[in-house]
């Protein structure tokens, strides 16, 4: 697929990884619209890319996604590409043993992570695929997964959500493939972003880097290049493109 002129929706487009993807997409000539919960970052994004559209939307809220997708459709029609990139990083063990006893994983955080990292992918995809099918658009859905989908200790909710994303990718690829819509996932390993550093202790991160054969974190632009490659290759479908520097082998 040639990205030039293609209409692209990307959720979470103002974060470090999302912004790198936006840069790459714009550079390849795509017409990009960002759905993000952080409107305060829109100005800096639009300063760099004046043609990029920005829509404030909490993708964990189905009603907001429904309204935002309808608004987009009214203005631009069906998108060619949807990138489900929004999400949150969260680390917590199932039980934490401390001097005070045993502390259980917070249930509210479990629900929040599942909502942000899994339900949002469903909400956004179901709303836009409806439009894509109605317009007979042959496009691509890209789900941003994670190396955590194989199960990372201390990240129950995040691991479960990303494993769910991989399952959705396979199920949707089978459902939508006959209609010419590919569904793919890109699973970054640990990337050098503010959110990675915020969600992971320095000791855990040093330990993780020591297990990566390349002995470093991914650069955001390397993840973005993987996303673009997954979009451009018309025979890549239903699979997870793992970009983890060889962490999981």
């Amino acid at each position: 697929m040639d990205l030039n002129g293609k209409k692209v929706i990307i959720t979470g487009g103002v974060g470090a990884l999302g912004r790198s993807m936006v840069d790459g997409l714009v550079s390849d000539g795509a017409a990009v619209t960002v759905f993000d919960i952080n409107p305060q970052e829109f100005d800096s994004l639009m300063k760099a890319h004046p043609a990029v559209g920005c829509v404030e939307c909490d993708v964990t809220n189905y009603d907001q996604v429904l309204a935002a997708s309808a608004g987009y459709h009214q203005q631009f029609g069906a998108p060619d590409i949807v990138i489900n990139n929004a999400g949150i990083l969260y680390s917590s063990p199932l039980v934490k043993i401390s001097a005070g006893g045993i502390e259980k994983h917070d249930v509210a955080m479990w629900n929040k992570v599942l909502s942000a990292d899994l339900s949002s992918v469903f909400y956004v995809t179901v709303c836009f695929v409806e439009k894509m099918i109605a317009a007979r658009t042959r496009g691509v859905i890209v789900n941003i997964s994670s190396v955590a989908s194989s199960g990372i200790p201390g990240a129950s909710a995040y691991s479960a959500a990303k494993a769910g994303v991989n399952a959705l990718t396979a199920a949707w690829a089978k459902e939508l493939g006959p209609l010419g819509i590919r569904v793919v996932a890109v699973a970054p390993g640990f990337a050098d972003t503010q959110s990675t550093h915020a969600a992971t202790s320095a000791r855990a991160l040093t330990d993780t880097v020591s297990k990566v054969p390349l002995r470093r974190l991914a650069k955001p632009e390397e993840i973005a290049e993987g996303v673009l490659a997954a979009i451009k290759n018309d025979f890549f479908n239903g699979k997870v493109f793992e970009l983890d520097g060889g962490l999981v082998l």
Partner: protein
Amino acid sequence: MATVLQLPATRIADDLAMKDVDAWDSLKHMELIVSVENTYGIELSFDEIVAMQTVREIKRVLRHRGVTS
């Protein structure tokens, strides 16, 4: 249609409807649509896809598209 729906060819009659065939669910419907498109070299609109829920309607849409065989 018989191949996609895994039905005996003798069951493919004008009155056969999606609602009467267990195997003809929405996923099979998409498969059927793609099969029709590939067979006749056409691209059906969303309205046509939604309308094609009986053999009679499928024939009507195809006739409208100029398919004669």
